[in-house]
């Protein structure tokens, strides 16, 4: 049983990719991730996130801003959903554009959750809790 627990812990990545060009948002999101005892891997824009994902797939979840310099959040999601090693990672899209069309596009591109800005501390916490919870169940289901 102990061995099983050790194995489970070993195979479950406890890292979350956070891609946002806004330092305030990055800090807020990473603070909550640390509270959930996860490690935040930070990208300051879409291109940086893409570069990280090219060589690293050990993420429990990804939190991605819709509008970023160099590479938009939607393109990043499409890339993640086209790569076998990244497909299982649940993704939350964050956006200041409150547009049903954009939300629909995010989900059809492969987002697991969508959080419109501005959000309260409570909304952000619930969304991250749900995302990380989803990650566990997605892995269990896989």
């Amino acid at each position: 049983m102990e061995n099983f627990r050790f194995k489970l812990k070993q195979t479950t990545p406890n890292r979350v990719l956070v891609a946002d060009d806004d330092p305030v948002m990055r800090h807020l999101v990473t603070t909550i991730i640390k509270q959930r005892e996860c490690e935040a891997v930070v990208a300051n824009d879409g291109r940086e996130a893409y570069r990280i994902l090219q060589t690293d797939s050990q993420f429990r979840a990804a939190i991605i801003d819709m509008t970023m310099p160099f590479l938009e959040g939607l393109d990043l999601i499409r890339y993640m959903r086209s790569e076998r090693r990244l497909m299982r990672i649940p993704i939350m899209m964050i956006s200041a554009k409150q547009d049903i069309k954009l939300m629909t596009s995010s989900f059809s591109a492969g987002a697991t959750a969508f959080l419109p800005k501005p959000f309260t501390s409570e909304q952000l916490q619930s969304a991250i809790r749900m995302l990380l919870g989803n990650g566990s169940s997605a892995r269990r289901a896989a």
Partner: protein
Amino acid sequence: MSFDQVTNNGNEGINPHAFATPSPPGITSDAVDMELLNAFEELQLGDGSDLIVELIDLYLLDAAQRVTEIREASIETEWVLLKRAAHTLRGSSGSLGVRHVAEICERLERMDGRDSPQTVADLVRLLEYESAMASASLAAVRQRRLN
């Protein structure tokens, strides 16, 4: 004249000179929704750091840079750059309760070819004013928390 009167009169009604001079730091204004900002208190990590002070520091640095980007983009009529900077500033302003700045950014994002250069210039001036007001309020909050 209130902020709402200044921004809700349509493009012709924008009057960045409608306000008095900014309040000195320490004087409460409605530039920041304190309830929204203080709600982040519950996210404190318990490691001795003050999350709200950290958020204010990051915001003050970033907002100043975005406002400069917006002003320069408006002068150079670089609308894509202007809208991108306004979009980012709106996101962080809205979440930290810096309401007026967020509202002006939203209007800047909605600008199109029908808006005159004068309207854009007026909105940018209003943004600079409201951003200065909010920064003064946030700096006062920061100082109080450090004391």
